[in-house]
């Protein structure tokens, strides 16, 4: 199979499917388990894989999140490299013991005898009009848990490269794609590799450091463009991996700008923004603000749902307050 070298235009979902395909081609130990994966997954993020690799490697399962996650742990201990599909992050909660008490603890608890190289894909974020049980952003829960790597890709290119990196990681990775990004398209270069734990600087500036991840990066980019017109140049950092997170890049920037704004879609209270803010404050003493959703469940009606959204305008306003 000839490796594509020229970047090819593809969606966030297609980029992910291609990443799984490449890893499956490279390593016969890679398997996919989850509900509806044989039909390509509910977002097309496994499209064509069962036809290509058969139902012994892309395995449809019962509706059994606990068993899917737990079986992933067992498969990993027995030498396979499972990609575990949770459909949405909200349903991953049905496999929480298996992820948190089993997958995350195994290597440490058994003195390094076992390794659990599984990737748990659990799409997150607000999904239009899907209400309180299908729209949550729970990345901080997982970042809190020793033993888990946490990844939140924001673009097709990153989704391709980071999913491959996650699948090559020897430990459990919580991989949170955003449901509102599946259709986002851009040229993807398959040869690009991105190590876990490395942030991307999307814009350079001296007025303020702006840190975000996932879909919120796009709202931040929009805000930065508007602020640039007003002469405010922002250092925009897409964290990409929440654990381990790229302290060096963030702290270097905060040291220069002396101002940090962290933006996330998740509820602000006890969100991962607090971790970054505290770390930056300790290391650089910079001025800090956080911006996330209020601590409310996501409502169904558009007007209620909007209360949980953090948009470019709110980001710009928060940035201006910090700079003033």
């Amino acid at each position, binding site marked *: 199979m000839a490796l594509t070298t020229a970047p090819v235009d593809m969606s966030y979902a297609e980029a992910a499917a291609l990443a799984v395909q490449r890893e499956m081609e490279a390593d016969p130990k890679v398997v996919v388990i989850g509900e509806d994966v044989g039909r390509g997954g509910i977002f097309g993020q496994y499209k064509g894989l069962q036809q290509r690799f058969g139902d012994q490697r892309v395995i449809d399962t019962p509706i059994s999140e606990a068993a899917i996650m737990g079986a992933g742990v067992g498969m990993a201990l027995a030498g396979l490299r499972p990609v575990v599909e949770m459909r949405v992050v909200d*349903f991953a909660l*049905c496999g929480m013991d298996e992820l948190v008490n089993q997958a995350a603890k195994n290597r440490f608890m058994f003195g390094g005898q076992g390794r659990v190289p599984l990737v748990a894909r659990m799409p997150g974020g607000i999904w239009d009009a899907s209400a309180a049980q299908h729209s949550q952003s729970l990345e901080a829960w997982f970042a809190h848990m020793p033993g888990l790597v946490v990844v939140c890709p924001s673009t097709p290119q990153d989704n391709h490269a980071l999913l491959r990196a996650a699948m090559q990681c020897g430990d459990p990775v919580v991989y949170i794609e955003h449901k509102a990004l599946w259709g986002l398209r851009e040229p993807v270069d398959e040869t690009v590799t991105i190590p876990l734990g490395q942030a991307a600087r999307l814009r350079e500036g001296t007025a303020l450091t702006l840190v975000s991840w996932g879909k919120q990066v796009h709202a931040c980019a929009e805000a930065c463009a508007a602020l640039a017109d007003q002469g405010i140049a922002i250092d925009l950092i897409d964290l990409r991996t929440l654990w381990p997170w790229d302290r060096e890049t963030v702290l270097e920037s905060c040291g220069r700008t002396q101002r940090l704004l962290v933006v996330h879609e998740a509820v602000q209270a006890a969100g991962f923004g607090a971790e970054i803010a505290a770390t930056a404050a300790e290391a650089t003493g910079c001025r800090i603000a956080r911006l996330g959703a209020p601590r409310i469940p996501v409502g169904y009606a558009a007007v209620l749902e909007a209360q949980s959204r953090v948009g470019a305008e709110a980001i710009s306003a928060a940035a201006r307050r910090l700079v003033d």
Partner: protein
Amino acid sequence: MDSHFPDPGRALALYRTMARIRAFENAAEIASQGGVSAYGQQATGSVRVRGPLHLSTGQEAVPAGVCVHLKPADYLTSTHRGHGHTLAKGADLRRMMAELFGKATGFNGGKGGSMHIADFSVGMLGANGVVAAGLPIAVGAAHAQKLQKKDAITVCFFGDGAINRGPFLESLNWAQVYGLPVLFVCEDNRWSATTASGPMTAGDGASARAEALGIAATQVDGNDVFAVHAAAARLVDTVRSGSGPRLLHALTYRVKGHVSVDPAAYRDPAELAAALDTDPIARARAACLRAGIAAAALDGTDADAHAEVEAALVAAAEAPWPDAAAAFTDVQTTGAGQWH
């Protein structure tokens, strides 16, 4: 088949429940696609049903036949496919339509939408966006009824896909261990999202699993409302008399896709065609006619259902949106003494 036929008044009541569910869901489906009402008269403009809409078309006989035996004090838990259950339990049709539109006049003030329908005023404790999550909640409600010595029972609807999640087993075990007044109703429509349930389920399904735990199970043709009605009558009586949990395994079919926008292209058209031949409403109608009920009575029931749904659509379209501030209410109570 007509051996189950009840008295004509009851037969017509069952037919009416099914007709209302069908009319409601047909209208909701159209309102989710284009913002136009079911019968094309009332343009609803930018107002429409948003988000995932799970239709129970073809499954109406199960809630109709079961819930007719329930009282307001009886509890009900439901699934993501819960419009039929809710209507059959006696919930207000207009308020449900308003909830689908996300309006302030809906059951939940627009906070829940179709997947989170609930009407506590008639004992309907909630639809659920998480498969099998209603089972332990039903068991808890039934446990409370028993502890409080209430003369009431809980009915729990769930799908054939749900029986593969742990909470199904854990809930049946709990209900049996404590001898709880709960009727588990498996609506076996043969599909779980885009995957057929059969190949994903070991053994003989819901009934066999219940029996393995000592819970007597009854299988019924879930597209024959009179058969469901008769079986549920016995089971509800048994559960009400304090004999512990029972399970009703109703064999039906999911006529539409998993959600309203799903064309279900993964399904064999022959399978659908065969199922359409056993449409529960057409069958009930034929049975009613055979039993001597006038066609005019059935037609009038249909017309009433359509008129009621049309009025609900108009009311929902015209109703106010929730205030943005409502997003911050009913989140939780903090501090002591605020809840008794």
